[in-house]
Every structure is written in structure tokens, then in C-alpha cells.
């Protein structure tokens, strides 16, 4: 097990290193940040000074080496726009995204798992069909549209929740439901498919013959056996939620990392783009490493 863990951690480090190269290159492909950072009144001398100040007048390999060296010390540079450490901006923005993603994940699991189990247990019946409809709609509906519809319904027509913003518990409801709708529908599908396979297996049949209750079979035995792919998927989904809530954050004016990355890209603020993307990547890699280790613990065959 410890060898497996070390191997996975080693892979994570290599992946991160490759990510630094990709992010550095892609950020610079977006173009020169100078006209965006400086006002229209800036002279050519002002622009040249700016480029010198941030090392943008050096060659790309030189810039990359300096960037990599600083990153190993946790220094992602100073934001061109904010003139503050990029990591400070990213850290501030990460918290609302983590909160939203966690809430969306909890809602998705609370909806997706039970629905998937029910659909598998009552395969072919009306419950199964209803759950199937739910998961199809959930996959098909665009997040942006759903968010706006929820605002129109529950903030304007029936003013129950605030339309946008961050800060109070009520602010969490509409955006997390928006995010959870898609995620829960995919969890439902995956759970249903895996549970179906397990419920048809011989050992479950044996347990029925032995007179175990349906609840005990499902909760104690079948779910555990079906959980491996579900746990893997949940890990992937959480990582995606972290980086992919951009549209939802924009619609609901959520001050999260998605909005920060988009603003940074549009304004060519390389330090923030690099810090934000690498941080999100790090989270993603960490989550998946933990998921892999968890899977290995659940099923030791995975270690081979």
C-alpha cells in the first residue's frame, strides 16, 4: 500500500510540473498585457517601464525559469492589475468556490445516490422511469439557462431567495442547486448502472436466499461493491466543480475563482492566471490522488 501511495504522489508531482509549463505558455499566448493594464493616456515610455518592471522584456525561457524557481517557494508573482501577490487574490477567491462546490456536491450526493439506488431496486417500474427522466433533463439543461430561470422563479416572481450575491446562507441556495442539478443527474445514472450490476450478481442472490432484508443487502453489501466507480466519479466531479463553476459564478455574481480566472485571462494578468490555474490543478490532482488511495483501500486489487 505504501508503495502505491508513493507512486501516486510521484505521478502527481510530475503532472504539476507539466502543468506549469503548459500554463506558462498558454498564458503568454493570449498576448501582451501592457495596453490592458495601463490607461489610454500611457506613453510608450510608460509601457516599456511596465514591461521591464514585470520582466516581460526578457526571453520566454528566462521568464519560465524565474517563474518555476519562484513557484517552488510559493511565490506566483505580483498581479499586474492588483499590484498585490497573485496568490493572495487567488486564496481570497478560492474560499467562495470551495464553499459553493462543497454545497453543490453534498446536494448532488444526497439526491443522486438515493435516486440511483431506488431506480436500480425498482428497475423497469415507474420510479425507474421518473429517475431516468430526471437524469436526462439534468444532463441536457444548460447551467446558464437554469440559473437564470431559478432567479426569475425564486427571486423575482416568488421572492424567496436573493437573486445574486454572496455572504448569507440564503445566497447559497440558488447557485448550489444550479450546479447540483447537472452533477446529481450524472451521479444518479452512474449509481443506477452500478447498483443494477451488483444487484444482479450471485452473492446478492445468495443473500436473498439466506433471508437478508432488502435494506441490509443494499446498504451493507451492494452499495459497498458498487461504490468504487462512484467514489472515483465523485472525486472527478468535485475537481470539475472547482474549475468549472465559471458560468454559475458569473450569473450569481459569486466572487469565486472561476470569475477571477476569467477576469485575469481577459486582462492578461499572467500571475493570477498561473496562480489560479495551478492551484485549481493542485486541488484536482490532490482530490484524485486521495480518491485513488481510497479506492485502493476499498478494493486492494486496484493496487496491482
Amino acid at each position, binding site marked *: 500500500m505504501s508503495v502505491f501511495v508513493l507512486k501516486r504522489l510521484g505521478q502527481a508531482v510530475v503532472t504539476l510540473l507539466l502543468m506549469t509549463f503548459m500554463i506558462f505558455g498558454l498564458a503568454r499566448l493570449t498576448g501582451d498585457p501592457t495596453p490592458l493594464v495601463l*490607461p489610454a*493616456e500611457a506613453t510608450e515610455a510608460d509601457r516599456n517601464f511596465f514591461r521591464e518592471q514585470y520582466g516581460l522584456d526578457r526571453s520566454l525561457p528566462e521568464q519560465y525559469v524565474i517563474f518555476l524557481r519562484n513557484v517552488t517557494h510559493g511565490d506566483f508573482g505580483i498581479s499586474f492589475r492588483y499590484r498585490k501577490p497573485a496568490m493572495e487574490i487567488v486564496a481570497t477567491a478560492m474560499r467562495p468556490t470551495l464553499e459553493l462546490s462543497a454545497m453543490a456536491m453534498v446536494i448532488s450526493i444526497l439526491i443522486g445516490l438515493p435516486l440511483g439506488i431506488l431506480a436500480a431496486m425498482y428497475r423497469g417500474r415507474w420510479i425507474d422511469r421518473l429517475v431516468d427522466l430526471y437524469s436526462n433533463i439534468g444532463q441536457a439543461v444548460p447551467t446558464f439557462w437554469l440559473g437564470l430561470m431559478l432567479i426569475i422563479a425564486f*427571486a423575482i416572481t416568488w*421572492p424567496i431567495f436573493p437573486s*445574486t450575491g454572496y455572504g448569507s446562507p440564503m445566497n447559497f441556495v440558488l447557485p448550489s442547486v444550479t450546479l447540483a442539478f447537472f452533477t446529481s443527474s450524472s451521479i444518479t445514472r452512474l449509481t443506477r448502472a452500478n447498483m443494477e450490476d451488483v444487484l444482479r450478481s450471485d452473492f446478492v442472490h445468495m443473500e436473498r436466499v439466506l433471508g437478508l432484508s432488502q435494506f441490509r443487502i443494499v446498504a451493507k453489501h451492494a452499495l459497498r461493491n458498487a461504490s468504487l466507480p462512484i467514489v472515483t466519479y465523485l472525486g472527478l466531479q468535485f475537481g470539475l466543480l472547482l474549475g468549472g463553476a465559471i458560468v454559475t459564478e458569473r450569473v450569481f455574481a459569486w*466572487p469565486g475563482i472561476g470569475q477571477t480566472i476569467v477576469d485575469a485571462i481577459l486582462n492578461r494578468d499572467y500571475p493570477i492566471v498561473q496562480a489560479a490555474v495551478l492551484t485549481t490543478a493542485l486541488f484536482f490532482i490532490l482530490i484524485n490522488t486521495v480518491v485513488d488511495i481510497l479506492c485502493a483501500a476499498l478494493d486492494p486489487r486496484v493496487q496491482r
Partner: protein
Amino acid sequence: MLRLGRAILLVIINLVALDLQATAEQKPDLIVAIPTDGISLDPDKSSTAADYPVLNNVFEGLYGHDENGNLVPLLAESVKASQDALTYEFALRRNAKFHNGDPVTAADVRFSWQRAVDPELRNPRASSLAANIADVEVIDEHTAKITLKQRDSAFLDNMDTLWAIVPKKYIEKVGNEEFGKHPIGTGPFAFVEKRQNEYTKIKAFEQHWGRVPHVDVVTYKIVPDDQARLAQVQTGEADLITNIPPPLAARAQKIQGVHVISRPAMSHESIQFNTVSGSRLANRDVRIALNMLVDRKALAKTVMSGYATPEILFCASGTTGCDATTDLHQYDPKAAREMLVKAGFDFEKPLKFVGPLGARMPQGKEIMEAVSYFFKQAGVKVDLVTMDFGAWLAVASAKAKDPTIDMCMEIFPDYSKDNIVRLRRQLYGTELWSWVADKDLDAMLSKALNIPDSKEREVETAAILKKIHDDALTMPLWSVSNIYLARNNVSWNPTLNATWPVLWNVEKKN
């Protein structure tokens, strides 16, 4: 016993009266939803227009503008300018104070200049005004004499946007960094708190010299999405929203409980013709013909939903000399086609037309597509290239203009009614933003900038605008409007200003 009862009753009545009075005097708070958060709270470190909502309300200059865009004294009571327009003696208001109660003195004016040009702060806007100041002399506590290096006809006009008066004692005590987190100015509002990308709060400054606000706390909420901002004002979560695109404003007129406020922004949208490095539009007749191909009035009515004022001249409504009534290039596609044929225009080769996408140029893509459509009706092919705002900025302000580009979409604000500075920045041959190569125009621009008398300068500006029009050096489209949506219990006459109006005169009924 009776006396005691009477005494108690009197006390109760007085307490109730006091409470009623307090309620009557209590000003309402105001919530304003804006799309982008500002970056800097320090006027000498600001480089983006997103900072103006806070900076323009918290800080002031010696001179500024009233709601109609007229130049008025702010922190100064009056000014005496020398005949050569190189020296200005300002008499400061005796009752002007900073938000911490310190009086505004000539020493603060001198300090503000020194700080604005401090190489350590690297003020991005210093070159536009402060860097042209040779010295600020403290004559006495309430008199400051400013000497310029070169004449600047827009010196007074640009003060409230480009040079704020900051508190010397406070900054020397706390340092630049702390000042940037807890700024103190002289504006109608004092800074309270800020949470990046969430909100910024400013509060009415009751001891302001003349513009005491009618509201108490103003909260700027950051809501990037246009539809989400609209939802905010519909639900009452915001009292006022800004940066409304014209089609949304047209729809919003039908929404109950809100009303549209629209004010000319002194911002001018146009299409620049490349005569600097390009050759296809070097012919005057070709440029005139292209101008005649576009029906600006129809475009303003449709694409801009009526929230734009078509301009004959290359200027924004309300600015100097922008009052022509005769249009030499009226919409006439048939005559335009004939002119192009006569001029030997190559109809086979498309004109490359670039412009930005995104909210910073409202309806930019739609305008470009509409103009291309007009051109195509006359057989003029267009290679339309829309790009993201950053890429467009790099192209539009490149020192060496791309010779393959024939036309470039632009929007440019005038900070004041005297638009000579903007004209120079956009049209003078060696300026970064200029696509025009015309030595006669360069000479006229240089001459106008050096005229100290404003009336004489107006005459020269009018001549410049006429020349630009007659030679069709550009294709002016229109002046844009700033569009706001407010709840019906909010009334406001925003300042005629391209940057950001001050909120002191917003009225809100509870």
C-alpha cells in the same frame, strides 16, 4: 403625584419627538449594482476606469464639472490664470475638509502634485496632467500657485479625473500602503470598507463644502452579468444599476417598478480609416464614399435602440465645436457607389475591418456587422475581424499600424467639453492611437493646443472638426449614452461625464 405624572408625560413626549425627528432626518441607503470591481483606492495608482465609481466620489480636484458638464470650481473657490496660461493661482475654499476633519491647505495641493509624479508610485495617469506641472508654490495657507511646463488647454478640465487632492498629514503619518487600503479624500462620500469582487461601501460626508449627499451609505455591489443586474433592480436588491446595453434598456422600459435614466456620455464611437500605413483609403473620394454608404440614423435607432446620438462631426455631443448641422456625406449609397467607381476603387479586394468584442464597446460586434452589411449592399467586400478587447487594444494602439488593416472600430471618451486633447490623442500623426497621416491636421492640432484663450481655441477646434469632416479622415458614428436603471423611488440627474458621475445628488424616497 400629579406633578410627577406631568413630568413623566413631558419626558415621554420629548423622547418621541426626538425619535421622530431622527427618523425624519435619517437618510436612506443606496445600493448600486455595477459590473466590474475597481482595483485601486489610491487615485495615484489607478489605471482602470473600473476605479472611478469610488474614486470620483471619494476624491476631488481643484476644479471639476457640474451635472451639465460645465467647468466649476470644486476645492478651489477661484483661479487667476496668467496671460500666457502657464501660471494658475488658486484660492482654496476655507471650508473644504478631508474626511478626517483636517482642512484642505495649499501644502496639500503641493504634496498632491509631488505624490502624483513620485517615481516610486509610477502613477499611470501622471503624464496626462501632473507631469506637466513644473512647480506648486504655497503662497499662503489657502493659496497655491501652479506653474506648468507647457500650455495645456485642458488643464482645469482634466483635474477632477486625472489629479486628486490628497491629505499630506494623513499620508505622511500612515504611509502609501495604508492610504491605499483606507483612503481619505474630500469628496461627498468617505470610504468605509471594501471586499474585493463583492462590494465597496462609501458613506455621506456631512461636512462637505457644498455637495452633501441626499443618501447615507452607498454600497456598490459587483454583479458582472447584465441579466443578473437587471434581476437585482427588479427585486429591489439594488436601487440603481449601471452599464446597461442598449437592447436591454429598451426592454427594461416595459418593466414595472423601474425607469431608465440615460445621459450622453461625452464618449464618441467611430471608425478610423488607416491612412498612416494603409494605402487603400488614401484617396479622399473613397473615404467620402464609404461615409455615404452608412445610414447612421438607422443604425442608432436599431442597433443602439435609440441610445446614441448620430454625429456629423468627429466629436461627442456637448463638446467644443460639436454643433454642425450640414452633413456633406449624407447617406446616399447610389452616389457613393458611383464615386467609388470613378475613384478606381478595387471592389474585388475586401476591406479589412477590425474591432473588439465585449462589454467595453457596447454593441460593437453588431455595429461592425451592420456597417459591413451597408458596404456589401454597394458591392464593397469586407473582411470583418472581431477580436477580444485585449487583442484589439494592442492593434488599435500599436505604434506601427498594421498596413493590412483598412478600418478600425474605436470608442474614445472626452474628459471635458474641451475636446482638443482627445482629438490630438486620436488623430495626431505620431500618437499611439492615431490612424491618420495628415500634416496639415497635425499643424492645426498643435496650434490649437497652444492657444491659451478658450474662445479662440473653440474657433480653432471647430475648424479642425470641419477639416476632418470635409476630408472624411474618419467615419464618425455617434455619441454614446450612459444608461442606468433605477427603482421608481430613486431619482437622479447624472453628471454629463465620460468617466463616472458623482452620486451626491441621488434622491431616494423611503
